[in-house]
């Protein structure tokens, strides 16, 4: 199956202990809230209890009268005149004229203890004039809906659209109407998904310090220290280089820690408190109320299918709200939803709609799970109607290398067909099911991403190597980058230390997002190692008195490239490094780029469920994830990504949803009520790692983090129909909604 199956590796593909494992099983690893500083103050945030309200006045006098309260900040402490996304970020950090959602920050306070800061926050008197609000996307898109922000629409929105539509898109190719006319069956259905939260267990936490001279430092749990730097300095009107941001260990992110929330507040409080460091740690309810959930979606899909399984045409119209700011991932949802299929006639229409909810943040394959829920559900229903095997239908229409994707660009090397074939061959598919049990299948897609990347590598005096990367390690990327670096240098895995470094130590890096860390930082580390190897070969050549081109690097040593180069024993990396001070100084390598050659990743999931007809509860009996990794550098952590993505998707499908009361307040801002899957909800999650190497990466890596959350939503809906004959078109498929559907069916 692998296209370069004859290539053999010593380390890539093995499963060593992760380098940060010991710290993480002993409690030593330092996360966002684990650091304190001399003279530190604690910050607390005052948040709007209203979904939409004009801020009439803010009176901090009672708070400031408390002993130990050192500073209060409001929007008045932030610069004016920002535009575009910088303004959005500032407005979301701290409300200006209006609070735009339940939980929107309106003021912050710093005091000498956490309890005192919380008490002071309660004493800050905010007078509100409550305004009409809107929560649901289908309500928000109505022409007479409460207007969240006049003038927020960008140039893509045609005249005459409803006032909360801020982005509009309409793209495709071919003639969908002609395509529908060719089909044996045309079906159109509507679907809805609710907002869900990334649900990382570590709440946001930071320790910020900023002096009157505009120089500052921050310790913060984040997926991207440079994004924190860029966004904080933009919001505060500072020079980017004057803020040093150090990433802590990160307790999960899933996209939700690629932006700022309370970080600029800690800096503003610090500056106002004479430069004392200020620590802010969010509570879980603050996390759920005020940090990025994903968007909610309302979707219409129409597909034409021939009896032989050929898709003749497909059309999707998606409406998404991503809170009170532009940015719902409706574009991504549309790009991904038909991506597994080779289509000649396809049309997409999308609306990004404002509502009185928190500003959405990225969440694992942003948009793709919603789009997949709609499209993969409809395809399953149509296969059922035409009595076509759903896996055969997907194989018949599957995209392959060179095909034009549904959203435009041609695919490079991809492994969808291999993934579907591996699914077909899996023993889970031949297990017999009992009463009220059903099997569901769905495919999923994520582009994967490259992004700005800067890595440096230095050879130490003893011939070991250190690699500095800018992508925080969320799920084992230190291990994968160490494996690739050691493989390239020809040294041991334990001889490489990978450090995630602060913003002062490297050029700009995008966060660990877009499934990019192992692809982009890994590729840059391999190129950097190549530079160091070239230099080490040059040093050996100088010592041997031969041309550098006559030296090659084999098994961690320089050696003459052939008989004409002369007879010299190999010179090991330790020998070269031991005398580098006398042969020209430090030996290092570095690489900066937006690495080319991203490889897209397809997956296919198969789930078996049992539905209790008396309660409507769905039990996951077994679960299979098959996905193309390109190459699994550390297979255990690739499996972990597959399993974790599936578990999040299962939660989204069955339990999780933002629930608002009639005043627009989030009704379930605690883990008891926002219920993510627990250990007893799930079975073991079977995985198959398909390896169709990505030719754009030196070891074939595609990136594996995101695709896995995409298929569970439709796969489970498809399994529920298979089990009990009801089609669920609105997530979550909670016991109550499934039971209602069973009763409605009679």
């Amino acid at each position: 199956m692998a296209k370069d199956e004859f290539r053999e590796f010593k380390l890539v593909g093995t499963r060593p202990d992760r380098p940060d494992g010991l710290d993480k099983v002993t409690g030593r690893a330092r996360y966002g809230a684990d650091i304190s500083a001399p003279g530190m103050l604690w910050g607390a945030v005052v948040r709007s209890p209203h979904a939409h309200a004009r801020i009439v006045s803010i009176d901090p006098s009672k708070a400031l009268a408390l002993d130990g309260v050192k500073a209060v900040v409001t929007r008045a402490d932030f610069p004016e005149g920002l535009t575009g996304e910088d303004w959005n970020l500032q407005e979301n950090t701290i409300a200006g004229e209006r609070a735009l959602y339940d939980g929107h920050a309106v003021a912050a306070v710093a005091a000498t203890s956490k309890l005192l800061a919380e008490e002071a926050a309660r004493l800050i008197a905010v007078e509100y004039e409550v305004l009409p609000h809107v929560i649901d996307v289908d309500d928000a898109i109505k022409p007479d809906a409460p207007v969240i922000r006049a003038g927020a629409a960008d140039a893509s929105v045609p005249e005459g659209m409803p006032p909360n539509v801020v982005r509009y898109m309409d793209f495709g190719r071919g003639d969908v109407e002609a395509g529908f006319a060719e089909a044996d069956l045309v079906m159109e259905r509507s679907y809805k998904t609710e907002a869900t939260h990334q649900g990382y267990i570590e709440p946001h936490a930071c320790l910020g310090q900023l002096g009157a001279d505009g120089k500052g430092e921050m310790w913060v749990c984040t997926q991207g220290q440079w994004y924190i730097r860029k966004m904080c300095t933009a919001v505060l009107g500072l020079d980017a280089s004057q803020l040093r941001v150090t990433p802590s260990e990160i307790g999960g992110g899933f996209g939700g820690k690629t932006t700022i929330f309370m970080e600029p507040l800690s800096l503003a409080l610090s500056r106002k408190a004479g430069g004392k460091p200020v620590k802010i740690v969010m509570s879980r309810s603050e996390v759920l109320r005020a940090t990025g959930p994903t968007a909610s979606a309302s979707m219409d899909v129409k597909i034409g299918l021939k009896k032989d399984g050929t898709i003749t045409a497909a059309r999707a119209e998606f409406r998404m709200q991503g809170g009170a700011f532009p940015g719902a991932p409706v574009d991504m949802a549309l790009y991904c939803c038909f991506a597994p299929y080779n289509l000649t006639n396809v049309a997409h229409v999308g609306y990004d709609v404002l509502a009185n909810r928190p500003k959405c943040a990225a969440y694992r394959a942003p948009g793709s799970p919603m789009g997949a829920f709609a499209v993969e559900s409809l395809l399953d229903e149509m296969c059922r109607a035409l009595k076509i095997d759903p896996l055969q239908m997907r194989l018949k229409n599957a995209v392959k290398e060179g095909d034009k994707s549904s959203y435009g660009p041609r695919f490079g090397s991809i492994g969808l067909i291999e993934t579907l074939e591996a699914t077909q061959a899996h023993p889970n598919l031949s297990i017999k099911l009992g009463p009220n049990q059903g099997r569901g299948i769905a495919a999923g897609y994520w582009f994967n991403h490259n992004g700005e990347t800067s890595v440096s590598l230095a050879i130490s005096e003893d011939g070991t190597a250190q690699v500095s990367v800018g992508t925080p390690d969320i799920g084992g990327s230190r291990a994968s980058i160490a494996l690739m670096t050691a493989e390239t240098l020809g040294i041991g895995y334990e001889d490489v230390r990978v450090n995630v470094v602060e913003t002062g130590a490297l050029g700009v890096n995008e966060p660990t997002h877009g499934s990019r860390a192992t692809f982009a930082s890994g590729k840059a580390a391999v190129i950097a190692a190549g530079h160091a190897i070239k230099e080490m070969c040059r040093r050996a050549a100088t010592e041997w008195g031969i041309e550098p081109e006559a030296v090659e690097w084999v098994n961690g040593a320089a050696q003459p490239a052939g008989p004409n180069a002369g007879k010299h024993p190999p010179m090991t990396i330790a020998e070269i490094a031991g005398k580098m001070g006398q042969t020209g100084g430090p030996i290092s390598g570095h690489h900066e780029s937006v690495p080319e050659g991203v490889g897209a990743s397809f997956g296919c999931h198969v789930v078996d469920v049992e539905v209790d007809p008396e309660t409507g509860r769905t039990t996951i009996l077994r679960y299979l994830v098959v996905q193309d990794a390109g190459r699994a550098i550390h297979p255990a952590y690739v499996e972990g990504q597959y399993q974790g993505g599936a578990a999040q998707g299962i939660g989204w499908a069955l339990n999780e949803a933002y629930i608002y009361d009639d005043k627009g307040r989030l009704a379930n801002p605690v883990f008891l009520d926002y219920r993510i899957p627990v250990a007893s909800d799930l079975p073991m999650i079977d995985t198959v790692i398909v390896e169709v190497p990505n030719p754009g990466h030196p070891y074939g890596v595609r990136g594996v983090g995101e695709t896995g959350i995409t298929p569970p939503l439709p796969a489970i809906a498809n399994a529920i129909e298979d089990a009990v004959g009801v089609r669920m078109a609105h997530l979550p498929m909670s016991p109550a909604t499934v039971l209602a559907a069973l009763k409605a069916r009679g």
Partner: protein
Amino acid sequence: MSKIHVTTVVNGDAVEFLADPRETLLDCLRDRLGLTGSKEGCGTGDCGACSVRLDGTLVCSCLVLGVEAEGKQIETIEGMADGATLHPLQRKFIEHAALQCGFCTPGILVAAKALLERNPDPTEEEVRFWLAGNLCRCTGYDKIIRAVLDAAAEMRQEAA
């Protein structure tokens, strides 16, 4: 609010601290004693990231007041390894790649140790239900459950 003097034993060491009567045991461990291995994921007893043992009983330290520790024995993740020798659960978590971000790991290890002391030979289902109060968002629990079962098997073999 005036503080209360608390004397207690943490991981075998006698310690004392001054606690605001409103402070949780978790806050006292983290902010008064510098034991930041126990984590706060929710503050409402729903996630288990703050799991510790209080006189042997598994508790969410976010639901216990610091002053309640007076005269008690507390075990936290920092006391789980015997010097440089990891507890089998800690070793098996690394071997099985049973952690991704690692934030829930201390609480899960403390909870799993309490399980294996009560029940050295748990079934998969028993492990899943025992750990149902410890949320993990990264792993889907698969490798965690395998690591606990494998550690239990090894500990039984050593005990035999």
